[in-house]
């Protein structure tokens, strides 16, 4: 049974045009204006809406295996589909960590069983993310792992990081760094600045990120192996990456919606919902990150979707775990807070991250006949209020609770299957 997306405007990497899209058996079979619905066809209304290649999240914590009380691969996949994502990269800080073929295959299989989006496991750089011994890159690459990271922590040892880059050189994989010099952030709760000084909280200084960004740029220059920087949060980090790219180094970078929209002042009420790692920074940092996204220094908008149970987020601020939900609010935050053309916002949500993740053969494809039907239909003008209890995640830790966002996902098609219709998950 075919599906007709009716009355929308397509925006993809080839440009913009008004056309209907017909999908059958997982593929786009017709793209043309004024298509007539077949009698037994599912029609997805897209008037005043935009049809985009499906979104790709480079940075999703799905918590399974190990922390299913906070999120499961199924609940996280549902949140992803509702957020317009057709593929998510599952971060490896599960328990056990994603450092073996068995765990990686488990994550992929759970994603397949949920059937709401493609769940693509990342792999660890080091065994157990302990920073001591390299994970089996080639074994994991052979089962489709492309992004390797110890996210949650950075690889502290510069020698080990050098070896990781050298060893990865011939494997067509990308090492992704969580940039944080751990000794400089011991006990840190929030950005080290005026607010933390007033609130009497231990600070997370910007240099703790920048030192590692700087070190890794030097190691990329030395080894030639590509590297991706996760969740950049400071103005100086953006400057370092800009200069490295100008030099022609194979570096990519991402920023989260929350680092583009919320500042450290949000912590003034001591609400652990706003505790995240790296921490919310200053308005000046936000401006620099926006500029970095606008000029292409930053390649992707990645959610760092990090569910935590209500009980853990009700601990005192210094004990509560860092992290916030992001999958269902990313588009709305981007459209509400970024002063960029819609095509550029879709680029950093879809085809640019798809290229970094090495999945550009099936996600973030142009909306053309013969392409896999991984598509998102968005209403860029719909205003909606974020209600934590209505989100699909098992957790409630959204920093946007009660806020109004502009721009919402209306339909999502994953491999030609409408997994979200009119904002409602179909499974």
């Amino acid at each position, binding site marked *: 049974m075919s599906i007709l997306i009716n009355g929308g405007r397509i925006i993809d990497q080839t440009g913009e045009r008004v056309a209907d899209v017909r999908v059958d058996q997982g593929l786009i079979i017709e793209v043309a204006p004024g298509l007539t619905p077949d009698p037994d066809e599912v029609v997805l209304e897209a008037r005043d809406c935009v049809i985009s290649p499906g979104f790709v999240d480079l940075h999703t914590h799905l918590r399974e295996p190990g922390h299913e009380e906070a999120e499961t691969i199924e609940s996280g996949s549902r949140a992803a589909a509702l957020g317009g994502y057709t593929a998510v990269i599952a971060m490896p800080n599960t328990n056990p960590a994603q450092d073996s073929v068995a765990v990686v295959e488990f994550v992929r299989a759970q994603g397949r069983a949920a059937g709401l989006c493609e769940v693509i496991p990342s792999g660890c750089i080091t065994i157990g993310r302990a920073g001591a011994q390299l994970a089996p890159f080639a074994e994991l690459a052979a089962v489709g792992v492309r992004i390797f990271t110890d996210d949650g922590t950075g690889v502290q040892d510069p020698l080990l990081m050098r070896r990781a880059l050298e060893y990865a050189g011939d494997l067509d994989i990308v090492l992704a760094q969580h940039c944080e010099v751990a000794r400089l952030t011991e006990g840190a709760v929030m950005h080290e600045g005026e607010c933390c000084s007033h609130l009497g*909280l231990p600070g997370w200084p910007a240099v703790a990120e920048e030192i590692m960004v700087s070190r890794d740029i030097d190691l990329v220059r030395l080894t030639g192996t590509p590297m991706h920087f996760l969740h950049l949060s400071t103005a100086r980090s953006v400057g370092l990456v800009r200069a490295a790219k100008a030099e022609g180094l194979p570096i990519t970078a991402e920023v989260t919606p929350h680092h583009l929209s919320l500042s450290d002042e949000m912590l003034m009420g001591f609400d652990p919902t706003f505790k995240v790692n790296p921490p919310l920074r200053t308005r000046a940092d936000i401006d620099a990150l926006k500029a970095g996204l606008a000029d292409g220094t930053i390649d992707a908008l990645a959610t760092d979707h990090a569910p935590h149970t209500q009980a853990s987020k009700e601990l005192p601020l210094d004990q509560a775990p860092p992290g916030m939900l992001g999958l269902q609010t990313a588009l709305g935050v981007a459209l509400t807070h970024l002063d960029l053309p819609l095509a550029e916002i879709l680029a950093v949500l879809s085809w640019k991250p798809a290229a970094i993740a090495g999945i550009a053969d099936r996600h973030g494809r142009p909306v053309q006949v013969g392409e896999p039907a991984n598509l998102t239909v968005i209403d860029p003008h719909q205003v909606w209020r974020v209600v934590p209890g209505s989100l699909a995640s098992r957790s409630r830790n959204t920093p946007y609770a009660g806020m109004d966002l502009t721009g919402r996902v209306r339909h999502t098609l994953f491999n030609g299957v409408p997994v979200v219709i009119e904002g409602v998950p179909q499974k």
Partner: protein
Amino acid sequence: MTGPDQTGNDQTGSSAASHCRSIVELGPQRVRHLLELTDHMAEVNRRPNPKVPALRSRTVCNIFFEDSTRTRLSFEMAARRLSADTMTFSVGQSSLNKGESLRDTIETLAAMGVDAFVVRHRSSGVPWAISRWTDAAVVNAGDGWHAHPTQALLDCHTLMSELSGSSPRRADLAGIKIAIVGDIKHSRVARSGIAAFEMLGAEVIAVAPRTLIPPHFSTPVTQDLDTILPEIDALYLLRMQSERMSGALVPDLSEYTMRFGLTPERVQRMNDNVVVMHPGPMNRGVEITVDPAELPRSVITKQVTTGIAVRMAVLFELLGSGAAQAAPETSTEVGFESQMEEL
């Protein structure tokens, strides 16, 4: 979209005005009002029978998640002098050790009919979390490195009274220069004290090595205690904790004393009129190597005495009848005087 907020961030509707959580949040008007109320409470405390009916049938629950003998006893005594019922809950005896969450503990205690929680916790911000979960008033008795508003109020009141001598207590600290010396970075006493002193017009200078100054600190800082000694009106010494040595913050205690301690040599350099203050407990031989009793103008024990009056003022402001709405002189509701009648 509508619907109830289900985050657990649900506000109980209580506003900052129904709590005493930090000097900044109190603001200048309430700070001055509380200092005036303290004058009245000090008068009550001078009576042969220092007990009034003001908070009869009100329940004050002291929850101390961190050891504190003096502050806890001071709050208990304050509540009792106002005829409130008191409960004291120390973490050692609590079910928090059995895995009960802070929120469940607070909600359980609140359900017993607590009107005010007096909270001490080693983590900054816990009083704010508690006020999200209960309608009761919350008094911050010290949270992490953040705030200790009743200490700041008693420090201000003690200093103002001392500087006024036998005249009525001065209304502000304009023209007064205060040096606050020691580990400011890790000190809630310093944060609240500086906020209150500056709010009342004092000129504050922080004296400490850069390692013990908060980052992006807005108060003037010096490392040269000797140079400023002749210029100051008050010297506020902070407690220097030996665990600071392990974090590469200070090389060792004797070096600290050499640079920042109140030594006999420094007493010589100091004006005789300088008021010396310390929040206690003192580390004799570290931040102070002289006997404070031999100083011309030490108010360290006076601070402790004033602490009771200040805490009475705070509890009365939050729980007393009509107390928060008007200054005592103008209050028409359930007469202030009748609440302050001798029992």
